């Protein structure tokens, strides 16, 4: 089975992340980026399925030049080929526009017939988690989301979704789109051999025009939502020091109760 995985290049959460002052978008140039950790689970799951079934894994990303690193990392892990959609007009795109570009890229990469699309459950920068559902709708595929287990068989995909109070087993007919959680597997590291092999793997670089998308459908100016203001989190306030005069325990309990911890 041929599988498409959507991946995103995000600012390193360990670094000092920020926003562009001019338009309140995420600063992607001034911070080291990497393949979103939540997407590594999607890549790993696709690799496992492809290894078992003999298919190919294609990774698709959208983003500026450095987003190619996310594709490269997935290729080093073992994916077979990559697609990088890179166009200045994409800057500032919201989730509907992102899903539009991804959908067209997936159609082009699969001649309009994707068999299985796997995504992470959210990106680690935007953390909206809505793109998988929007993408499924645009591709006309059934969506099964937040999978912490995934099996294929009889033309169906079956997932387990762990909720707070229960566990659901959900089936969908193939082709389908699945988003996976960070509980589904342990992503592999790239290997030295994988790093060497990745240099020879094909990566397509497409623009909006290659996908037949009008620049007026995407980008910051056409976003349905907009970040209007950004304020830094205020510094943490000075802690309250309670002197224990024999009633320290009571005071501590009162402190916690007042904040509804007890």
């Amino acid at each position, binding site marked *: 089975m041929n599988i498409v995985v959507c991946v995103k290049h995000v600012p*390193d959460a*360990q*670094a000092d992340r920020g926003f562009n002052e001019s338009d309140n978008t995420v600063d992607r140039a001034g911070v*080291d980026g990497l393949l979103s950790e939540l997407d590594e689970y999607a890549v790993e799951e696709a690799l496992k399925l492809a290894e078992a079934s003999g298919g190919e894994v294609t990774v698709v990303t959208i983003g500026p030049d450095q987003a190619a690193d996310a594709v*490269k990392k997935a290729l*080093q892990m073992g994916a077979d080929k990559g697609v990088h959609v890179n166009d200045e007009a994409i800057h500032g795109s919201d989730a509907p526009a992102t899903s539009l570009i991804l959908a067209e890229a997936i159609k082009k990469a699969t001649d309009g017939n994707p068999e299985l699309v796997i995504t992470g459950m959210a990106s680690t920068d935007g953390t909206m988690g809505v793109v998988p559902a929007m993408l499924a709708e645009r591709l006309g595929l059934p969506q099964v989301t937040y999978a912490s287990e995934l099996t294929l068989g009889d033309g169906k995909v079956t997932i387990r979704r762990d909720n707070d109070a229960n566990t659901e087993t959900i089936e969908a007919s193939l082709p389908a789109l699945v988003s996976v959680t960070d509980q589904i597997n342990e992503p*592999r*590291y*790239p*290997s*030295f*051999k994988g*790093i*060497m092999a*990745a*240099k020879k793997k094909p990566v397509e670089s497409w623009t909006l025009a290659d996908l037949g998308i009008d620049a007026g459908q995407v980008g910051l100016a056409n976003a349905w939502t907009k970040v209007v203001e950004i304020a830094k989190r205020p510094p943490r306030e000075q802690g309250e020091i309670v002197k224990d005069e024999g009633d320290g325990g009571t005071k501590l309990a009162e402190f916690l109760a007042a904040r509804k911890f007890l």
Partner: protein
Amino acid sequence: MNSVILSARDVDFLLHEWLDTDALFERPTFAQHSRETVDAVLELAQAVATEKFAPHARSNDLHEPTFDGTTVSLIPEVGVALKAFADAGFLTAGVPEDRGGGGLPTSIISACLAWFHAANTATSGYALLSMAAANLIRTHGSDAQRTLFAEPLADGRFTGTMALSEPGAGSNLSDLLTRAIPQEDGTHRLFGRKMWISGGDHELADNIVHLVLARTPDAAPGTKGISIFIVPKYLVAEDGSLGERNDIVLAGINHKMGSRGTVNTAPVLGDGAHTPGGAPGAVGHLVGEVGQGLPIMFSMMNEARLGVGIAGTAVGYTGYLKSLAYARERLQGRLLGAPPAGPQVALVEHPDVRRMLLAQKSFVEGALALMLYCSRLLDDAVSLDGRAAEEALALVGLLTPIAKSFPAQWCLEANTLAIQVMGGAGYTRDHDVEQHYRDNRLNAIHEGTHGIQGLDLLGRKVLLDRGRALGLLVARITQTAERATAAGGSGEGYAAKLLAMTARLRDVTTRVAVAGGGAEVLAEATAYLEGSGHLVVAWLWLEQWLAAHGKEGDFYDGKRAATAYFFSRELPKVGLWLDTVAAHDGLTTALDPTVL
């Protein structure tokens, strides 16, 4: 990402801004690699070291290996980490391509290994031993030995040991007693006792490949009568399948001060605990020729000793980063003249704490530069032609005792300073730095003690060599000084100091050479080693200063500050060491030990 294991920024600076690693990729030997490959490999090393090695470094120390009389038990995280190391391909990434490896430059492999040692030097030890054993068999073994032993070592199915020392023979290998008796089938049977053997038994792998030094019957006395044998824990059939248990067991394990996670053992060969083929005696396979044991072992010694240097450097480096992070956060006291009721300042604001941090920085970053420089010389030796390759090899031979010893001594001092910066907290087991000190203390002892390195440098690498390699070093130092003089500013002052001290080294070397290198001279070999070591590291600080010259930002300012520290506070010590050598006054040779 700011790591407290190692500085990726510094590694990047040394490899690319200083050593111009990209130039290697233009040579046929390394043409298949690129900046992209090495960056990805370094990133991989950082990730595996951070996620699989570092988390159990403490546990490895607190729950040291146990031995129940039959089996050695380790915490399970060790096996998981080593599997990740093998799966990532690090066991063979640095092996030349024509021997089935990845052909990565040694300078890149050394930087990767620094990540692993800094994260967890004890667990790294197992992988390093396997790499060394595989390398020796690949280089000196037969085709069958390569297939049956080197290949499984290279893919992580087997692990290796180096079984040299005995209860009565450590630094003095010529006194070893283990016997190897030839058998009709071409194998040997070994009988004897070994001591201080790291990784001598455990359940981490399917098999353990011991490389054992032993004497054959009628062998010449001394080192010429020593041969080297492969002694597997389980016999290996021609098809690679595992057979009977070999007659090598443990008398016990040693309980160490540090590096506790690397099990250290006392193996017994041929006591009849097992009887392979129905008879006692450990089955061994001769590697190379009879009597070639020591030359074979020592052909791997440059790499092994550089490996120890990398370990010492890395453990010092991580201690520096951890004490620096602590000093930036911990509020303690006020600066002189500040109002007593005012807010406390971070430790890092105090001049004496800064002194200790700057000293650490100068030792650990200087040592890392030294390790990568020596590694680059090994790369040059295999990728350049003719005289350039010969020069690189001669220079790395000269620098190896320094590269082994400087980190063991001065990165250990960095660990002492890391404890000191953190005060009482640093002395507790709540923090890592006390363990780093204990772990690092090993590095002046194994793979040739500090004293042996002094004798190697002065006796063999300088006097026996008649100063040829030293001349190459002096030429390179002089070139650096000329560039620093041309750069101007503080570079001129550094260059003058460096040249003056280099002239002093030449002068003292000539003087002891003329004196004939007798017992009084060699008695001061350690002082010669330490003086040369500081001089070499000062030179490499000036090299780093030049690489940072004209560049702005905290990182480069840090390089300039550490250069200033090393030249003003450390380089002057060289004169004292060299004075001792020049005097070779016989204080220790003439001393009556009863007065001690």
